[in-house]
């Protein structure tokens, strides 16, 4: 394999690796704009210039590849390539490139939403001049809507064409293009074909400057005020890795997080803007009990006491409804509570979308169907007839939290069962059928593991604190079960995972520590 020397350090790299990739992989910074690991190389921004020994001019490192050199031609008898990123000439050129990029760039940082995570800002600070020699008037263009969610500020655009390549290569929809040439070039869309595909939000992420902006986040906050929590998107069964940006228990935006086994670099707009759903929701925060005419608030102690009483009274006639929206731990504890007598609500589906790049939006809108099936192996599809057959009198229902119309069959069934416990975070139609409602967590409050449809277990981390008196989803069935069986309760979610591993071999070596940011494939079932 070729050996390349970058600034005094030797690296052995694959043949055909670009210098920029080699450097980035080894924590050597080379400033770059147009290069994006997911996109084709164009080499247009000229920011990544480096000096390569033996070449007369500076080279763009993103488009210079390391190859095998015959042994008699090796430099110093050893290296296939010698690169300097710190050469004086390189530094001078970096300054010059930045000066070019900033010619028409406005001094907008105070009003620019990219400030704080802007490559132009960072590089200008690190490699650029402190002042500009440009005295003429800057080119000023008005902002434009490219699609319903994306605004472009042409003044800030550095024409790296990342966004254009994204729509061509990743979404395959090719809405964006560079209009005109030279001084007049600008990113544009055709009027009849605006940027309105389900991956559009990603262009705002990959734009290295603040030119492409999501209307959802524009002028909302400043990036350094937000806390970033790595987590998992819960809007479909793909389980895209995301960063949740939140402040004071309020989520402000979601951005995709790199995970090459799941979503690579991107996420879809359903998930990206999905969190808004929970802002309007009427959140349940106290246990409620049904008494003539309506729900009244009660305490946890009473609610659990009552549930356990009913559970005792029901004898063998107990069943549970697992939910593909809940974590493995919650479903597992439910299965334990009802002795594996589980069914599930009808699935919520939409059309599955596949993009040419391989990016997929699943048709199954629930994040954890795979995991639910794993930890509740005896799920019956035809739950209604099972209810008839087994004379079910006590039902514990983990609610999806999605507002949906129940069909007549389910309605009739819930009516018939003597005692229905619903664990939910919202007053959905399902919760309204309950005799007792126990408040659980909303999606971004949950902690636990979820398994995506490819069988990858991922760590779902809480981004905001649990509201009011609500309790962790796994804890409520656990409390009831331990009280009912008269055994010691489990204390934290890790011990639930531990128990789960004992019952289901596939989950036996799963711990938060091992899952980390990237998750693990289930034993023996790893795709890839």
């Amino acid at each position: 394999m070729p050996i390349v020397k970058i600034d005094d350090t030797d690296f052995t790299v694959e043949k055909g690796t670009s210098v920029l990739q080699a450097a980035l992989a080894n924590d050597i910074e080379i400033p770059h704009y147009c290069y994006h690991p997911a996109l084709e190389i164009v080499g247009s921004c000229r920011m990544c210039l480096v000096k390569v020994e033996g070449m007369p001019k500076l080279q763009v490192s993103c488009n210079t590849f390391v190859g095998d050199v015959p042994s008699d031609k090796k430099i110093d008898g050893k290296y296939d390539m010698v690169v300097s990123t710190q050469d004086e000439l390189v530094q001078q050129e970096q300054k010059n490139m930045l000066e070019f990029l900033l010619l028409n760039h406005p001094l907008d940082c105070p009003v620019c939403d990219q400030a704080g995570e802007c490559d132009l800002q960072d590089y200008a600070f690190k490699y650029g001049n402190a002042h500009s020699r440009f005295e003429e008037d800057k080119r000023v263009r008005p902002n434009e809507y490219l699609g319903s969610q994306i605004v472009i500020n042409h003044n800030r655009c550095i024409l790296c064409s990342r966004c254009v390549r994204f729509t061509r290569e990743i979404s395959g929809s090719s809405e964006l293009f560079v209009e005109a040439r030279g001084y007049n070039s600008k990113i544009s869309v055709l009027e009849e074909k605006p940027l309105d595909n389900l991956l559009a939000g990603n262009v705002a992420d990959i734009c290295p400057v603040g030119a492409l902006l999501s209307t959802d986040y524009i002028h909302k906050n400043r990036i350094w005020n937000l806390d970033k929590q790595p987590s998992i998107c819960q809007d479909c069964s793909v389980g895209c890795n995301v960063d949740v940006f939140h402040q004071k228990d309020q989520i402000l935006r979601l951005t995709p997080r790199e995970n090459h086994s799941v979503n690579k670099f991107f996420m879809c707009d359903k998930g990206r803007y999905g969190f808004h759903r929970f802002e309007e929701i009427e959140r349940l925060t106290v246990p409620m009990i049904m008494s003539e005419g309506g729900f009244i608030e009660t305490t946890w102690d009473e609610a659990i006491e009552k549930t356990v009483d009913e559970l005792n009274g029901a004898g063998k006639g107990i069943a549970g409804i697992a939910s593909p929206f809940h974590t493995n731990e919650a479903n597992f504890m439910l299965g334990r509570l009802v002795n594996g007598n589980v069914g599930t609500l009808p699935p919520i589906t939409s059309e599955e979308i596949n993009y040419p790049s391989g990016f997929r939006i699943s048709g199954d809108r629930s994040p954890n169907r795979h995991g639910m099936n794993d930890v509740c192996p005896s799920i019956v599809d035809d739950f209604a007839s099972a209810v008839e057959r087994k004379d079910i009198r006590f039902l514990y229902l983990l609610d999806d939290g999605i507002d949906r119309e129940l069909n007549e069959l389910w309605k009739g069934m819930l009516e018939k069962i003597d005692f229905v416990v619903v664990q939910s975070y919202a007053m959905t139609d399902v919760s309204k059928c309950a005799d007792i409602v126990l408040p659980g967590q909303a999606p971004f409050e949950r902690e636990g593991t979820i398994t995506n449809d490819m069988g990858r277990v991922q760590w779902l981390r809480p981004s905001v604190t649990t509201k009011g008196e609500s309790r962790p989803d796994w804890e409520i069935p656990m409390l009831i079960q331990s009280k009912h069986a008269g055994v010691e309760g489990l204390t934290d979610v890790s011990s639930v995972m531990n128990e789960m591993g004992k019952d289901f071999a596939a989950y036996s070596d799963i711990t938060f520590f091992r899952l980390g940011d990237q998750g693990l494939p289930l034993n023996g079932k790893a795709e890839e």
Partner: protein
Amino acid sequence: MATIVKSYEPTFWDRLYLPALAKGLAVTLKHFFRKKITIQYPDEKYVPPDGYRGLHRLNKYPDGKIRCVACEMCSAACPADCIHIIPGPSPWEDGKERFPVRFDIDLLRCIFCGFCEMACPEEAIELTEIYDFSNYTRDDLLIDKEGLLGVYELTKDTNYYSRPNAGQDSEALTSDKF
């Protein structure tokens, strides 16, 4: 072992203490007749020196638009963490595209260091020389955007630091329109 080094051996008169006592009494008596330095506040007012850092104000352009663009540089620079800003798109068609929807300063936490005015890229926040703004409740010392603009109206004839852009209006300073 500690050694005692006597730098001074008191004489008989010193040990008598009486001359020293008399000297002390003389000092206080001298001050008794000196000019008093008290400033009788409500009647006489203390005039702070140039560069005094008092109550904040939020500046406006001559055409009445708020200079602040809610960039939150001030709150990032604030060591007391007492500036709270909620930004939003500005209501004006022309001019800066962003402005503070809310702008609160907790004057009780503020240490009047002036970092905020140094950090401000728009020369929007500025410390005036107003020092007598005590109040009866804590709530009254949380000053909001209206309050800060009110301070500007009170003090707009004074330039507390040299402002090269003072004369221009907001339009001349912006390059883009949203």
